[in-house]
């Protein structure tokens, strides 16, 4: 939460936060750095194994279905929709934070609600995709999709897919839970009594981070 500060303020001389933020936001930033290393380790492991494999299944073949329209061949359409939903939920989160800055309780409630809807919609899409793949015989330890060059594949394509998208989905789920708690606290006027909507900002940081991670997960599994 930015405050008016005099010029030539000695930021690091003690007695104040050198970044002009309260401790919770600082902790959130460091936590996100830490979490970035968790995902980084997963994705680098994925890269290592994929790089050392002779060939790998083709995402355009694996992810070609869309719910409700039968076996039409439209590669990556559904995951594009998922990604669009998640990015839109980031936009609504920005609007919720902005509403918080102007202490507009109704605005915060409205945009938090949309963010939660977006998060749940994303999780729903992921549940459909997982179920669909499961019915095709894909799961941890079993991979029905051949390599792109026609050779038989190892199970590591599905192993990494379910583990990493699952871990990401778990993060989205936690984010939705956090957002619901924030929504309830907003509706009960907790932040109005405090005089600031900092908690919404911190939840927003987490939410944007989870979206950012999805961009990398999306790239690694669906595009490359």
């Amino acid at each position, binding site marked *: 939460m930015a405050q008016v500060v005099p010029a030539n303020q000695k930021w690091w001389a003690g007695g104040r936060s050198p970044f002009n933020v309260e401790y*919770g936001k600082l902790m959130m930033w460091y936590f996100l750095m830490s979490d970035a290393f968790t995902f980084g380790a997963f994705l680098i492991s994925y890269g290592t194994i994929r790089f050392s494999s002779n060939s790998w299944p083709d995402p355009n073949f694996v992810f070609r279905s869309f719910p409700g329209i039968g076996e039409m061949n439209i590669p990556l359409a559904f995951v594009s929709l998922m990604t669009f939903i998640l990015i839109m939920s980031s936009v609504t989160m920005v609007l919720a934070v902005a509403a918080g800055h102007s202490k507009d309780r109704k605005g915060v409630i409205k945009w938090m609600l949309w963010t939660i809807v977006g998060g749940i919609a994303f999780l729903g899409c992921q549940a459909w995709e997982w179920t669909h793949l499961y019915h095709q015989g894909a799961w941890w330890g079993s991979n029905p999709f051949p390599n792109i060059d026609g050779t038989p594949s190892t199970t590591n394509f599905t192993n990494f897919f379910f583990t990493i998208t699952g871990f990401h989905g778990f993060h989205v789920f936690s984010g939705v839970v956090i957002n619901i708690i924030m929504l309830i606290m907003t509706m009960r006027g907790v932040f109005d009594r405090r005089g600031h909507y900092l908690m919404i900002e911190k939840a927003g940081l987490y939410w944007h981070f989870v979206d950012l991670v999805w961009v990398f997960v999306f790239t690694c599994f669906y595009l490359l």
Partner: protein
Amino acid sequence: MSQDSIHGHPEVVTTHEVHHDEHHGHHKETFITKYVFSQDHKMIAKQFLITGMVWAVLGGLMSVLFRLQLGYPNETFPWLEDILGRWAKGGRISVENYYSLVTMHGTVLVFFVLTGGLSGTFANFLIPLQIGARDMASPFLNMLSYWFFFGGSIVILASFFVQTGPFSGGWTFYPPLSALGDASPGSKIGADLWIIGMALFVVSSLLGGLNYISTILNMRTKGMSMSRVPLTVWALLFTAVLGVLSFPVLLSGLILLLFDRHAGTSFYLSDIFIAGKALPNEGGSAILFQHLFWFLGHPEVYIIILPAMGLVSEIMAVNCRKPIFGYMAMVGSMFAIAILAFLVWAHHMFVTGLNPFLGSVFVLLTLLIAVPSAIKVFNWLTTMWRGNIRFTPAMMFAVGFVSLFISGGLTGIFLGNSTLDIQLHDTYFVIAHFHIVMGVSAFFGMFAGVYHWFPKMYGRYMNNTLAYIHFWVTLVGAYLIFWPMHYEGLAAMPRRYMDYSAWSSFNQFEGLNQFISTVAIIVFAVQLLFLFNFFYSIFKGRRVTSQNPYGATTLEWTTPIRPGHGNWPGEIPEVHRWAYDYGKDDRSFIPQTEPIGAHESKH
């Protein structure tokens, strides 16, 4: 005392308001809130310390048991069967038990004693006191950090009591031994408990680390710029950053491992035969786990040694009555160590088939660590040079730390060379190296810290005579145990064997092994003397009668002898100078709280 003044920082208006919500019923202290679910950083520090002591005794006892086997492979000890039952049938430790003991000795001492017990204790105790804060940024998360640590401890402890025993494949937890339940008895439920225990430990370390970082950055009192904080605080800051960035990678590695264990995946498994039967796993890489593990594992050794370095620097300056030599060089070299910590992990993997060219890069980066390490060593030596040294027990241990750090560090230069490592890898030379440089020396830093700050923790002194006995026996003992191991290692005696008598090249060391085991038992016994001294002194030690018994400059000695929750009864003192104004302008010391005088010389 209002809540506002408890948490200070009127500038950051939001801080104490957030705190309000976390402090309901703060002032009605019951036994539970004061000693069990305490949110006072000083009490949490003591909880970490005493839990760490319990673990140190258990971990040390494990080493005594397997040293009995190594020193006396042909003897039987009927009393072992009495206490260990079927794990020591006929008075001899079983093979599974031997490997479990070695594995858990490593796990317990590296993580639960020298990480949780060391930085958990001193980061909690010293950060708020030395930077001038009422408590940690979030006392609640700080409490959770301890209880996750405790929970992890209980899970690891529980693995000793399951039918198939605790994990036995080494503290580095390499697959396939850790990934396949059929690989050994310890690879069954024991390995799962190890993973769960370590996951809880990682959460604890994350909560603690986030708190330490944000407290140091955000909550320094007025005037306490980063160039004025004591070196302990710098060391603990770098330690926390290392922990926050490296432990998550271990967690990722363990999650993948958990899937390999229970979901039929092959992240780390490929082309494996177990008891003549081929497993279907294909395409994974056991080396991948080693990379993930050592990306934590190497920073972990600095997580262990940096706090000890910080404690030693502070104790040296106080007891030499001289400013620490090269304050900024100390900070800079710790920063360099923290950066290099992330760039050297593959030197643990020179013999895994790593590309020799890549190996040579890691050799260079590894040997670069010698530069900041040497800067620190010379700074300690020059701090002592012509100092007016008070050889208190804390100072003795600090000097012992420097001695051990030099001895163990020099052999690190041997091992950092990939070509020499081909000969020395997996021999006793490695054991000798890391036990001296990070095991015993970190313990010396910890002992120095405990002896030095015990009066601040409990308002009483520990007994000096017992402390000197403890020091000398431990120092001489440590060298007697680990020095001969260098020779065994140079003679290619491999690690991890429980009985060498079948090899004529190695059974020449029978007498030497007996000697090492005997000394190890004596050193272990002397640690019990330390524990007696510690607990006896809590209740019966000589009382501290003055606020600043050492004549130290730092802020913790401006608090009351037994500070309450909030540390300073009135306003938090303001700071006007760095922490090392000793022997300046004919004064023994000038506290940090004293304004710069009109005619004061520059340091």
